[in-house]
């Protein structure tokens, strides 16, 4: 098998146009604050529902994942940009929202980017690139500092719940303004 065919078969993202943006919520939705990434996507979904179709950003897809590493890399194949929304434990105030390029977080155990059962996202992306996969050139992590992740719950703690709109705003600010999306910009 050639590297090129590998790239085409490297993941479900192959259906993407190559110009589109993928937003991934990372975390476990039944482990308290750990599920904040999913909740931010729920919030964005609701906001989009309430937006007139002409006002919605074009060529943006949303997804939710529970693990990083290879599975995350495979999911990113075929997108121009990716935004990862993740629960972080970096010692900030619970609910603090940060927005950084991936390389500033790569290798950090504070996030879910890696998988203990296969590879770090950094290694997975390097492997994907070596195999010729079309991976996003621009990956941004929107992080929410969390507090309670050791108890099973499908609720966020109050400070983290309160941060969901701000995190959703941070994601929205990274998306192209309505009517200027990648699809409409294409000739």
């Amino acid at each position, binding site marked *: 098998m050639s*590297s090129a065919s590998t790239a085409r078969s*490297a993941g479900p993202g192959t259906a993407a146009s190559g110009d589109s943006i993928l937003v991934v919520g990372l975390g*476990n*939705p039944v482990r308290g604050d750990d599920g904040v990434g999913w909740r931010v996507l729920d919030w964005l979904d609701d906001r989009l529902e309430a937006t007139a179709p002409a006002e919605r950003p074009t060529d943006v897809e949303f997804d939710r994942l529970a693990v*990083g590493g290879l599975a995350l890399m495979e999911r990113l194949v075929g997108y121009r940009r990716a935004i990862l929304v993740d629960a972080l434990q970096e010692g900030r105030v619970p609910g603090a929202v940060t927005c950084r390029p991936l390389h500033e977080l790569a290798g950090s155990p504070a996030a879910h980017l890696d998988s203990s059962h296969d590879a770090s996202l950094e290694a997975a992306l390097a492997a994907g690139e070596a195999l010729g996969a079309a991976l996003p050139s621009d990956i941004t992590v929107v992080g929410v500092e969390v507090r309670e992740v050791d108890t*099973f719950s499908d609720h966020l703690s109050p400070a983290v719940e309160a941060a969901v709109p701000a995190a959703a705003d941070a994601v929205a600010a990274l998306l192209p303004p309505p009517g200027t999306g990648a699809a409409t910009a294409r000739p």
Partner: protein
Amino acid sequence: MTRVAIDPITRLEGHGKIEIFLDEQGDVAHTYFQVPELRGFERFCVGRPVEEMPTLTSRICGVCPEAHHMAAAKAVDAVYHVRPPRPAAMLRELLYSAFVVADHTTHFYVLSGPDFLVGPDAPATERNILGVLHRVGMDVGGRVIEARRMGHAIIEMLGGRKVHPCTSVPGGVTKGLTEEERADVERMGRAMVDFAAFSLGLWDQLILGNEEYVAMIRGDAYTHETYYMGTVDPAGRLNLYDGQIRVVAPDGERLGQYEPSHYPEWIAERVEPWTYLKFPYLRQVGWRGLVDGKDSGVYCVGPIGRLNAADGMATPRAQEAYARLYETLAPADGGPKRLIHQRLAMHWARLVELMYAAERVVELATDAEITSDQLRTVPTETPTEGVGSVEAPRGTLTHHYWTDARGLVTKVNLIVGTTNNYAPIAMSVERAARSLIHAGAPVGPGLLNRIEMAFRAYDPCFGCATHSLAGQMPLEVTLHDPTGATVDVLRQHC
């Protein structure tokens, strides 16, 4: 010896912590392998409709949601006193077999691959998937990704969505296969069999062809004589999806075989003051501590647990691979079946199972009934209590639910693969530490990795064992002198 104080580990899920105590001579006196605990799983489940459990429990862990989904589906069947029709059971097993192909592939190439295909003492920067690709070639990397993709495609086709399946309902499944889909699954299954054969060939060539690796696999540092557990079919052959649980002694004698619902009569749990996780052990043998031998109730699950417990494999090419494994590491001597005690052979056993799972995909996809629309036995009885069990990639997985007459959950008990293996993993870590740390010898990253290899063989999912999601597992090894003072701390992913 100095008493061990446990620091509560709150920073991250699945945080492994190894405390090594040295004696006066600078040799290892004792080790402790600790994992943190997550709380509130039962409280989270109580009061929910039991039919939600297959979807809910698949959320426990992002690594093997399919295993939890299947164990939960079978437990819910038992709660409602129904048996799915044969096509429904086959569709579940088909999804499950495709999952095992993807999971075992990932473990072999990406998790253990760096140790065996790159080398245990290679720099950490090379011991990763990229290093593996450089060693075995990009075309092999492409095959690995393709095997994963096929597994996930079948899971999505049958499970209703990627990763977290939602097909199982009490008494069956919600989605069948069209003839077109069936043909597609059969084609992917045949490609999976080719890939498994290729992987076994790679093991032969790169691992068995390397004397140093063979010596390491056979060496004392990674060998334990314990009991073994695995699921077998009515003919005594290994089965990943359904059957009775068989337990064999270290000398190959059979201790017994039981229905999964009888697990409380077989398994007891030991609480130790230095860890949150309980140690399961064989009730009728008893707890003698973390020690080898026939008098110790410690048992091992997972690939070598299953292969040792079974009389053989139910598919032809997996049986060939199984025979070769035993001829190489435990040749027959006329007595009871000789067992594989070498923990690093877990990786080889995993490849035998990879072939079995791939062959099962083909067998099931070519069964005349697989496209039947007999997908469900509708429950009619009042729900009560039920146990469901499958062989998760990491070992026997048991779900046990109790409900009220309306089917609302009142109590839950789970025993996951890695929990079953907690005692052998702790023993393997200690054995590796004792074998590798000697008076005066420097302790460095290479040592850390060789100790890690002892538990990597089991592919432990301590996140899952504590009902959590695992990220990159941080590991911290602390060395103490006889007074308890810290001599050195080695960290990885911390």
